């Protein structure tokens, strides 16, 4: 890594950590229903929603009712988005006249946005009109994020309360997350992003002349470009803040209209980790011991920083074959150097590697460079971060509730070692909690490994092109890298991440269906056990700490937690990673 790379990484972390306390404190006020300032301005909206919804915001729910509310709400979202995509052809605000999406693509995209995955099987500027972008995708960007935050807050209440049946009211948590946290932050960010050059309009695509006419693949002359337009900035703001990551345009944050400047890039990366990091502090406040939140945040950083440095280093070292063929990949005054295939000059190596780590540590999935063209080890970092279960910051809400499941396992392992009943925050961790935590930790790896195995056994290798009926390859790369493309796709779906080794042709029936199902299972099969843990913990009384209690805010516990996360991730995925990126790395070095 160059000196400037360390400075950019350090600056990023410093700004992120400076925002943790104020935002975390503010969010704790929002969820404890204390005055937070914005309720004075928007309180009438909040009360209006409760009144029209016909429910009493003071009435709390048991975990089962809470889970039913989550599923019902997301089911409605899924149907609404599916309908919008199918009916696009007859809906207004579609200046390019795009037709309705196919049933598999609509299912995949609806599942993808409702689960906060935002996997892009669609092509942005070539598939979707403005109404579907706004009323479909933008809405789910907000609501899937708010759902994750609500579930987390329910789990925190389970830990903080004692001897009660209820864990909060989903409608209240959902509404307050959207109104007081996501909307104001998005408005602010969208405004700054427009100033950097992200488009925000309702105009049709704009034709401009080319300075030097070109010829296309068939030898026909081309004299102009068609610049894509649309209400992009609004959606891109929440795309990052809600760790969603679905692009307004096909190439996502590599597109100059989606991420035009180094400053927009910095803010987009910051927005991805902002809420997940601050929620650790919120957690500390709500359980009445801030050190607990800091300990978890430190554990996340301990894994994040070395992986970010690894990705940047691997990309900076570049591709030996490029040098052999006569390219200059050295970093110097005049150029960033390194492996620039699939990267933009304005971001260079540092910001491409850092963005890739940020977006896969969080379950965002936005990209500002093409991960498929990364060096094998540079591509291994984002893939493994997803396979760790998206708990290193993770998605808004979902990252921390996933991490708290790892905490339960870590506490349990520690309890076994010293032969005492494990406790966390005064709550005894018993068989039921362990079963649920194990489910949360085991479901995604099963989906990833079984899905990849099925796909590479045959169904995911070739497909019939919809227009010509021709049989085509799904994989864009041969050998080990082709396997990595499939492994990455299922990792991304089962981590609700959404980034891709995008050479894989996934907009065809097998992948649209398989990945759509993987995303839904990975989201809701985890949310239900998490809420069950919340209910079980809330019911328990508090055991006073004694000399035998393992403190969970110490460096020792941080090490234990990091060890648990890494061990589970390594034991599960090293064989699969060895077949993909590791083999490819050896091939690249020997060639």
């Amino acid at each position, binding site marked *: 890594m160059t000196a400037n790379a360390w400075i950019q990484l350090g600056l990023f972390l410093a700004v992120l950590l400076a925002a943790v306390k104020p935002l975390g404190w503010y969010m704790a006020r929002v969820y404890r229903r204390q005055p937070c300032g914005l309720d004075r301005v928007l309180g009438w909206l909040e009360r209006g929603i409760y009144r029209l919804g016909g429910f009493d915001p003071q009435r709390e729910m048991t975990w089962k009712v809470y889970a039913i509310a989550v599923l019902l709400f997301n089911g409605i979202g899924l149907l609404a988005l599916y309908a919008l995509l199918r009916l696009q052809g007859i809906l207004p605000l579609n200046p390019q006249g795009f037709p309705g999406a196919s049933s598999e693509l609509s299912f995949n995209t609806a599942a993808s946005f409702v689960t906060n995955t935002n996997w892009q099987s669609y092509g942005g500027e070539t598939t979707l009109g403005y109404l579907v972008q706004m009323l479909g995708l933008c*809405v789910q960007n907000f*609501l899937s994020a708010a759902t994750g935050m609500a579930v987390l807050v329910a789990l925190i209440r389970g830990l903080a309360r004692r001897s009660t049946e209820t864990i909060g009211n989903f409608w209240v948590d959902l509404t307050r997350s959207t109104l007081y946290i996501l909307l104001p932050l998005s408005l602010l960010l969208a405004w700054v992003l427009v100033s950097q050059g*992200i488009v925000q309009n309702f105009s049709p695509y704009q034709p401009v002349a080319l300075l*030097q006419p070109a010829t296309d693949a068939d030898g026909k002359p081309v004299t102009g470009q068609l610049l894509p337009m649309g209400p992009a900035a609004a959606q891109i703001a929440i795309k990052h803040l809600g760790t969603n990551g679905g692009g307004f345009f096909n190439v996502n944050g590599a597109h100059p209209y989606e991420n035009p400047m180094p400053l927009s890039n910095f803010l987009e990366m910051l927005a991805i980790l902002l809420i997940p990091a601050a929620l650790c502090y919120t957690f500390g406040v709500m359980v009445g011991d801030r050190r607990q939140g800091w300990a978890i945040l430190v554990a996340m950083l301990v894994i994040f920083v070395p992986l970010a440095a690894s990705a940047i280093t691997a990309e900076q070292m570049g591709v030996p074959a490029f040098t052999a063929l006569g390219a200059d990949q050295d970093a110097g005054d005049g150029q960033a150097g390194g492996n620039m295939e699939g990267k933009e000059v304005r971001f260079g190596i540092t910001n491409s590697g850092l963005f890739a780590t940020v977006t896969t540590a969080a379950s965002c999935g936005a990209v500002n460079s093409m991960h498929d063209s990364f060096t094998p080890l540079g591509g291994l970092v984002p893939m493994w971060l997803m396979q760790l279960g998206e708990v290193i910051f993770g998605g808004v809400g979902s990252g921390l509730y996933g991490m708290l499941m790892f905490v339960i396992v870590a506490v349990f392992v520690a309890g076994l070692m010293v032969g005492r009943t494990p406790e966390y925050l005064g709550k005894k961790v018993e068989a039921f909690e362990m079963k649920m935590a194990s489910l949360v930790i085991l479901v995604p790896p099963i989906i990833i490994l079984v899905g990849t195995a099925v796909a590479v056994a045959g169904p995911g290798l070739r497909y019939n092109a919809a227009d010509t009926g021709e049989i085509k390859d799904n994989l864009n790369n041969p050998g080990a890298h082709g396997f990595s493309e499939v492994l990455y796709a299922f990792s991304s779906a089962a981590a609700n991440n959404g980034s891709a080794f995008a050479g894989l042709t996934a907009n065809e029936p097998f992948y649209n269906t398989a990945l759509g199902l993987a995303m839904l299972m990975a989201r809701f099969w985890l949310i239900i056990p998490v809420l069950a843990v919340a209910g079980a913990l809330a019911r328990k009384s508090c055991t006073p700490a004694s000399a035998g209690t393992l403190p969970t805010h110490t460096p020792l516990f941080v090490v234990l937690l990091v060890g648990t996360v890494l061990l589970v991730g390594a034991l599960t995925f090293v064989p699969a990673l060895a077949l993909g990126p590791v083999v490819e790395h050896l091939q690249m070095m020997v060639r």
Partner: protein
Amino acid sequence: MKEQLRPAITVFVLLMLLTGVAYPVVVTLIAQGVFPHRANGSIIKAEGKPVGSELIGQPFTDARYFWGRPSATKPFPYNSASSSGSNLGPTNPALLDAVRGRVAAIRKAHPDQTGSVPVELITASGSGLDPHISPAAAEYQVMRVAKARGMDVDAVRQFVAAHTEGRTFGLLGEPRVNVLRLNLALDKRSE
């Protein structure tokens, strides 16, 4: 379950209107009011006609122009209506063949350059629309452009320097040259 149905539908519809209609409309109003140039695509106009966007690259092959990055968009390079990277991995023979061909083409067009070719000139950008090259990649082409335009080499260098942006606040991103703006400026000078 039935009890939750009404809140589910009402809350969904209301939040949908708020986040899917009110929010983007408010952002558009602010954007169009405060940053109309940016919000509408940063389009460059010459004599009232749109000649490109300062953020979207264009394809150049003429010896009189500075060339940008290779582009993987289809069916022609820098097709802004369909952004795309190559998505070729570093061990893919197709990528290595492409790089070999690009190195040969660049070397042929720059007989006076003997060193290695700056890596951005032989690798496709992620978007296929990258508007920039590095200062090193621009310097590599200076002699060729000067010769083709019959200009003094140092005069061309001055144009490059005037169109080079450093890191934001001296820290963020990478130094870069905007190819379209540089070429427009060169054309304007020769008129």
